[in-house]
């Protein structure tokens, strides 16, 4: 009897052990993921960063507000600035040293999910602004190594380091208690007037415009079709263009003879905001290249930004207006008149 009980007890213990062994290990933390909405918001954060920096909008406060309240920026010289008040002063001090120019072009942003947010590296292209008769040219500015946090205000930079080309790789930012905290819940979708799909489609519209403008594809209608039928291109020089017919003709004229691989209009930092009337407004950097070929360095003819309004039509998003705003242009070299010969004595 006693033996039977012992066997039964051993059996129960064995069953229990087997059951415990069969149980999956402690549930692993789900891998951090990013949704399309996160990607859209982070890309918008970078676009806003460029505009806020180059224009020192709101005395630098707009740029500072793209950081968390305890956010840190480390510049290429290793100067570290922390907190929004100091960040705003930092950018304002530098912006006031020269004319405001749009010279921050961000691209190739690799974003990785991380606990509490994300990490990212973004390429930074800038330019030598013309002086005297020197052409304006693109130069690599380096790259940003960033840690981002999802906050109640939206995605923000928690730690941002600018590294010059081929400079030393930055050390990982110091641990921050907020980094280990669970991410702030995403805001309800109902509060987002534009969806991730809207942002994606409008970015695509911007790219379609550039290809259409430079190649004249589809008899100019690749460009013209990116506008509503009554859409405007509000240039003052040579003139404003209204409607598909004028837009298509201008596209054909501008790209005549250049073929399908022409690259003249480079668009960066597409910043999109929902508009109160139901569509959207946008801004984007643009620089227009000229004169490249064997023995020549590439250079920039002019640059600035586009101010856009978009409408969501049954056929998708379209420009209703695109207004190019010239920020700077390559100086025109004017030859001095020949010096008259000195009168003979």
């Amino acid at each position, binding site marked *: 009897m006693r033996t039977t009980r012992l066997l039964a007890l051993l059996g129960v213990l064995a069953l229990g052990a087997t059951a415990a062994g069969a149980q999956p290990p402690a549930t692993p933390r789900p891998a951090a993921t990013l949704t399309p909405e996160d990607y859209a918001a982070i890309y918008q954060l970078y676009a806003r960063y460029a505009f806020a920096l180059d224009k020192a909008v709101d005395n630098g406060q707009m740029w500072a507000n793209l950081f968390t309240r305890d956010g840190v920026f480390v510049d290429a010289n290793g100067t570290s600035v922390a907190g929004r008040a100091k960040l705003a002063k930092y950018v304002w001090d530098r912006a006031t040293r020269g004319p405001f120019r749009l010279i921050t072009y961000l691209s190739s942003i690799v974003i990785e999910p991380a606990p509490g947010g994300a990490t990212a590296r973004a390429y930074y292209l800038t330019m030598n602004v013309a002086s005297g008769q020197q052409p304006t040219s693109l130069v690599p500015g380096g790259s940003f190594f960033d840690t981002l946090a999802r906050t109640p205000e939206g995605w923000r930079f928690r730690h941002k380091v600018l590294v010059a080309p081929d400079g030393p790789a930055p050390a990982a930012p110091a641990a921050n208690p907020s980094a280990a905290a669970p991410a702030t819940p995403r805001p309800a979708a109902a509060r987002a007037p534009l969806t991730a799909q809207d942002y994606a489609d409008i970015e*695509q519209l911007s790219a379609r415009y550039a290809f259409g403008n430079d190649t004249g594809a589809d008899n100019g209608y690749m460009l013209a079709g990116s506008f509503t039928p009554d859409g405007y291109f509000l240039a003052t020089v040579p003139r404003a263009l209204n409607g598909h017919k004028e837009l298509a003709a201008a596209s054909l004229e501008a790209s005549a003879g250049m073929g399908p691989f022409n690259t003249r209009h480079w668009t960066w930092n597409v910043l999109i905001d929902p508009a109160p009337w139901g569509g959207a407004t946008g801004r984007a950097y643009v620089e227009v290249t000229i004169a490249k070929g064997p023995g020549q360095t590439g250079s920039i003819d002019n640059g600035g930004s586009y101010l856009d309004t978009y409408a969501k039509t049954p056929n998708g998003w379209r420009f209703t207006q695109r207004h190019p705003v010239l920020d700077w242009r390559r100086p025109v070299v004017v030859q001095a008149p020949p010096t008259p010969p000195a009168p003979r004595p």
Partner: protein
Amino acid sequence: MRVRAVVLAAAVGAVFAAVGAQEAVRAQENVTFATLPARDYFEIKQLYARYVQGLDSGADGGNAFANVFTPSGVLMDEHGTLTQGHAELAALARATGKGPTHVAHFETNLLIVPAPGGATGRSYVVSVGPGPGGQPILTNDGQFQDELVKTPAGWRFSKREYHAAPLERPATGAPSAR
């Protein structure tokens, strides 16, 4: 009588031609651009970024770059030279990559269109390198034309073709960002 018939036929033909042209224009005006779901679009945008960073850094022995292609993926340069397959692509990145903070290629105007079996892509790319005196200059620019497929591991390039931009005309002096 015969002349009148010919004139009538010509007039009718002209009307049909005009109507046909108008319909063609209307068709172009009302075209709906095919777009990818946002999730695919942003994944592909990440792929383009990884291509550039993998090429410039040569990270992970070139594998970071090679991994943005399918195993049999192919890269064609402006001369038509092909680099194909994971080993060749990784070797290319090992040769060109210069570390984790090197930047040499800047890409923008990504245009992604759904296509049978995946998507096609186009982009502008400019490379910056050392010029006379060591000053960085724009050394090359052009377009990529790409074919992409969605694999179990995510979106990958099956083919990238680089085409150099044509020589451009001198500036006209028109102060427009157009």
